[in-house]
């Protein structure tokens, strides 16, 4: 499992540019994936968020309202690309 620390800004080769809204959201989702208190990741992010909310772990509220249906990168975390 690749353990990443999310940098504040994406370093491109020539200049530092601010992140797009989508990139910011994806970053937040990755942070949420790495939160060990919310349990394993091999379920969809929404399901994992529901579980964390139900058990009183206070996951970030913004995640709940992200456009999960619009973008396929949002629904599952990285490791779900690997088959079971």
């Amino acid at each position, binding site marked *: 499992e690749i353990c990443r620390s999310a940098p504040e800004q994406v370093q491109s080769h020539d200049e530092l540019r601010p992140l797009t809204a989508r990139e910011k959201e994806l970053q937040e989702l990755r942070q949420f994936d790495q939160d060990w208190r919310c*349990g*394993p990741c091999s*379920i969809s992010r929404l399901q994992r968020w*529901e*579980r964390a909310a*139900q*058990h*009183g*772990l206070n996951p970030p509220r913004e995640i709940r309202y992200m456009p999960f249906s619009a973008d396929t990168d949002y629904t599952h975390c990285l490791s779900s690309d690997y088959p*079971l």
Partner: protein
Amino acid sequence: MSDWFVCYVRRCATSTPGNSQISREISKLCSFERTNSFPKVNVHFNKIAFFVTNKRPIKAAMFSEVSAPQEGSCSLLLCRPGSEDQEPSVFDRVKPAYSPCSERFKLGERSFNRQYAHIYATRLMQMSPLLTERAQQKWGADVRIRKLCDLQMGEQCCIVGTLFKHMELQPSILKEISEEHNLLPQPPRTRYISESDELILEDELQRIKLEGNIDVDKFVTGSVIAIYGAEKNDGKFTVDDFCTADLPPQAPRTTLSSDRFVLLLSGLGLGGSHADSMLALQLLVDMVTGHLGDQGEQSGASTISRVLLAGNLLSQSTQDKDASTKAKYLTKKTQAGTVDAMRLLDEMLMQLVSSVPVDVMPGQYDPTNYTLPQQPLHHCMFPLSSSYPTLQLASNPHQATLDGVRILGTSGQNVKDIQKYSSMDSHLEILENTLRLRHLAPTAPDTLGCYPFYLKDPFILEECPHVYFSGNAPSYQAKRITGADGQEVLLVAIPEFSSTQTACLVNLRTLECEPIRFSSFSAGDDEESEMNISH
């Protein structure tokens, strides 16, 4: 406690009630003194049955006392059939308020594309706060509760996590198919524990071996507990003390004004090769529906407000899997063993549901899914009885509230599995253990088949039941226990009816349980058979 003995005698040629020949037959079979016995004869269809009650001083709450024969009732049975204008006495069955609450065990759409890690994660998530509270109650509010990754060497602290028991003898599919070991598949054993078993505690991130003041044999994988001790130099955690989540909070039950009974029954074993218990089963059905006995017994039977069947309605022999391995041309005309057995069950249930509400739970050998929670049997298998609203097809485990009394239990798979992986033998002891662990089936999903839940673990007891049972035990056992916060629970290990012919009657008013045994004698054995009056 006193037992009922209902016996069938040989059908006498002269079957007029009150005939002295019948009394002589009866006295031959009775091996105890006759002064207190009430031989009564009730001619019912082609059977002759008599009740011999052994009257000993017992509390009024006992079912046998409630339905004790009244003064002069003997003559009522032994008199000639009544005339047309004599009103037959009709007893209305008590109708308590019933509400099933097993929604958590019903599965809607099922997805098996999930790992079992989730059920363990959610189990720990739910139980951690409870155990933290218990730990503070037991070892002081300032006890240090540490995560395994924050452990300091030598520091006395408390850790909370899921137990894993490493057992050498536990069958491992990886070992079996590994070529380097050249192992043959292990024959199934009754117990998989050994001297070399080790306990390991796992929290969200790490695991650590446990040693010290903890009895490895009494614990099973999947239990969530809190341990007090310290990590020593060798990287193992030395246990000084431990605590479980113990009994959950209990809602107070409403005190009932009159005695109401629930009949708990399990392990009917229909469709089996031995039909020993069929007669006993018919007796039970006749008794509950009020077809047997005099007015006292019939009014007693009307206090039975509900019947609960806790699994293994069909016999294990109906699960013959030969049909799947044999060639199709050999099995074309044969039908599954379960078909006839289910027909028998449906006919029996129809007799019951026409008179009393029945909850039917599936068990290990019944035609429903294998993994827990087992889904209710499908109503299409009960063409005769499903038209009655009194038939309640329930899940396993099953939970219901009857007149404010909360009843929860399983058909016994959870208890039997724990028995295989621990040193405990008594079903009642294991049942109490699961209650104190606050989990119905800790060995699920490790060694007990279970659905891959991810949101919540439905086997965690959130509310303490008043009656907690498990079915298909080898013998009848019952016990009242009291929790630390004043909870009162009646634990019942319901015996397997096909081998013991015993059912249990629970009094909802007093929360007491008594066994009721239906034994029968065949026409052949006369002098040899003795009346068994032991408990």
